[in-house]
């Protein structure tokens, strides 16, 4: 009798949990692929809450997400039902035609989304953004105060400040930068080139046009900055640069807003953490456009899956970014675009970037090819092995070859 009661209770709880834990979904398959910084981990964990009963939720959050998202969505049925992407990486999904328009699902389940969260192409909703990001200045308030230097607002001021800090003997290499050969170095070039007022492509065409005075100036500024960096800068990505910061070796750097939180965490030496402060992105060469780019992160839904799985995925991802997920712990992790978000102190850099009119990263089908070519071809210049215009000519040649192969030229 007793055993039967227990069995009934267990059975009832299981049924109940499969209904309630399911966020209103009774069945379907949700599989998430995305990057792995803390804000995205939070979103992934939110979607996992929908697992149970007939609903399976899996997540694969990795820094290598862009290597696996397209192949994982090209099959039918697709392995991943949703990919968390940014403005650069959604392009690869659109290029390969693996994500579906979300208009019907937004109409059915998308109450509470702000219009600005919707990523639309000719009116078709292709993604839902949940956070914004940008690179901006991070500085050590104590070091700058000690030497009476104001936080730099231009890269030229940053160079002067760096020279002062080095001369004072406080730090040998006071500037930090994610200049690792490849994606990171190219990203810094994109920032600096935009700051110099350059355009990457001839208007309305895939023909690259970076071998000009803006490009040369951008490269020379990058090399001038690298003189104040750890000599291993070509091997330092955002993680390694953050580690340098935490070790107290760096006083000035241009860093992602979403990476500032960990720099101020309890694990970091309080002398560094308490004096880590942020400001808006810097300008360069007398320009008014910041040498930075604005980014959004959002999610998409696979094209090659059943309508039921697409609906389940949409609901689970909506659950992950519902306004109630914002609390004291999650709010400082990012600049959330979610309704009800109250900006924290950690967000002021990204807000300043938006207020200063920072350019969004270009959402062009071939921008990624230019980015890859820059990451490979600019290293010789950064090592002083060739001139800036030779490096830019190499970049153009590498891009043009790749763009011809892909059918853009």
């Amino acid at each position: 009798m007793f055993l039967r009661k227990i069995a009934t209770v267990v059975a009832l709880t299981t049924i109940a949990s499969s209904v309630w834990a399911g966020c209103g979904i009774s069945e379907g398959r949700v599989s998430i692929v995305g990057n792995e910084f803390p804000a995205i981990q939070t979103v992934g964990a939110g979607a996992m809450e929908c697992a149970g009963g007939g609903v399976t939720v899996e997540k694969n959050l990795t820094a290598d997400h862009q290597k696996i998202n397209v192949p994982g969505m090209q099959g039918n049925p697709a392995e991943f039902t949703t990919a968390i992407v940014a403005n650069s990486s959604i392009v690869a999904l659109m290029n390969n035609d693996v994500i579906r328009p979300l208009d019907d699902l937004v109409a059915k389940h998308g109450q509470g989304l702000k219009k600005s969260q919707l990523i639309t192409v000719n009116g078709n909703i292709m993604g839902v953004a949940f956070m914004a990001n940008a690179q901006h200045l991070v500085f050590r308030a104590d070091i700058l105060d000690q030497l009476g230097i104001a936080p730099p607002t231009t890269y030229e001021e940053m160079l002067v400040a760096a020279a002062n800090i080095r001369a004072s003997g406080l730090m040998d290499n006071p500037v930090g930068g994610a200049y690792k050969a490849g994606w990171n170095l190219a990203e810094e070039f994109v920032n600096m080139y935009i700051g110099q007022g350059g355009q990457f492509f001839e208007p309305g065409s895939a023909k690259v046009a970076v071998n000009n005075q803006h490009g040369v100036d951008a490269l020379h500024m990058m090399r001038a900055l690298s003189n104040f960096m750890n000599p291993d800068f070509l091997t330092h990505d955002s993680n390694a640069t953050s580690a340098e910061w935490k070790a107290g070796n760096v006083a000035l750097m241009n860093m992602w807003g979403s990476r500032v939180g960990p720099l101020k965490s309890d694990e970091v030496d309080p002398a560094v953490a308490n004096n880590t402060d942020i400001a808006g992105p810097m300008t360069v060469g007398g320009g008014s456009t910041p040498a930075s780019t604005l980014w959004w992160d959002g999610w998409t839904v696979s094209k090659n899956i059943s309508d039921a799985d697409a609906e389940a995925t949409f609901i689970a991802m909506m659950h992950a970014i519902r306004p109630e997920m914002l609390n004291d712990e999650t709010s400082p992790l990012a600049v959330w675009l979610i309704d009800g978000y109250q900006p924290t102190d950690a967000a002021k850099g990204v807000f300043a970037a938006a207020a200063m009119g920072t350019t969004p990263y270009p959402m062009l089908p071939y921008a990624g090819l230019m980015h890859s070519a820059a990451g490979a071809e600019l290293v010789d210049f950064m090592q002083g092995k060739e001139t800036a215009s030779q490096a830019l000519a190499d970049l153009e040649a590498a891009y043009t070859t790749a763009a011809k192969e892909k059918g853009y030229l």
Partner: protein
Amino acid sequence: MNHKTFFWFFFPTALAMILFIALPLTSIVSQSFHAPHEEVLLVAEICDPFGCEIETTIDHEATQSLKDSQPLGKWVGFQIYSDRNHLAFNEVAKFWQSKSSFTGFLSSLNNLPFYRAMGFTLTYVIVVTPLVILFGLIIALAVNSLHRHLKGLMVFFSLLPMIVTPLVGSLILFWMIDARGIIGSGLQELFADPTLSLKASTGLTWITLIVYGVWHSAPFAFIVFYAGLQTVPKETLESAMIDGATRFQQIMHVVIPHLAPLVAFVALIQLMDNFRVFEPIVGFSAEAHATSLSWIIWNDIGQEIRLLSSAATTSVLTIIGVVILLLPVLIRTWREFNPEK
């Protein structure tokens, strides 16, 4: 064995070879002769949290019928092989015509990704392969002369570098050679140069990668030679000793001739492996200073926009490179097994 028995005996192997070697190879070769269709670009209004802008995007419907009828893409023949990011015939010809000196020609070749990768790869192959054989032999001879109670333990420790996954092994060393790592700061101390960095200069990065390559592969040569040493005929060694040969003379005239076929085997495997050098470049974040064909393939398919035809072409070029490299060894083996009648 009659033909029927042989067929059924060989069938499973043949099937596996067709499925896992021949078919992928065919696919790679055919991919390298095809490129994606030309994309029809379309101007569209793209809106995101930062506002709306008129941007270019791809019109999928416009090329769908073309893509359905020719799913492999368009036939381009050797176009990708000869383009700037591969063999770069036009660029090389131009450099040759405008060269001021032969070294100037070589340094301008270094600006082309394929030749840059070949420069490092060939250096790596030429330096690492003989060193691996030499160190493998020395370790094998040393371990073999130990007391039998110690041998097992030493064999285990000597094999450790090979047991560690290459990527993990190189990552561990990457942090140890950092300017603030134990080896890096040790070297700074040793050379009394506080700015010494193994990661910042091309020459030192190459040396690091080569040292890593020898460290990682020497155990393989060691264990092969160690096995061979167990079969050295005792009688010959003893008669050499009676004739008054020193240990060095015994090794040179008895042991090494006995191990010669194994040296050829290790050389064959090492040439092939070293030509495909890849993990240490990733592990040591060395791509600013050293690249290889395998790294180029990985880079082509690991970016936001994947260059599949380019990666396939580099794969075929790698296979051709391995074949050229192994040709002398293969010809020799062929002659040994097919003596002229």
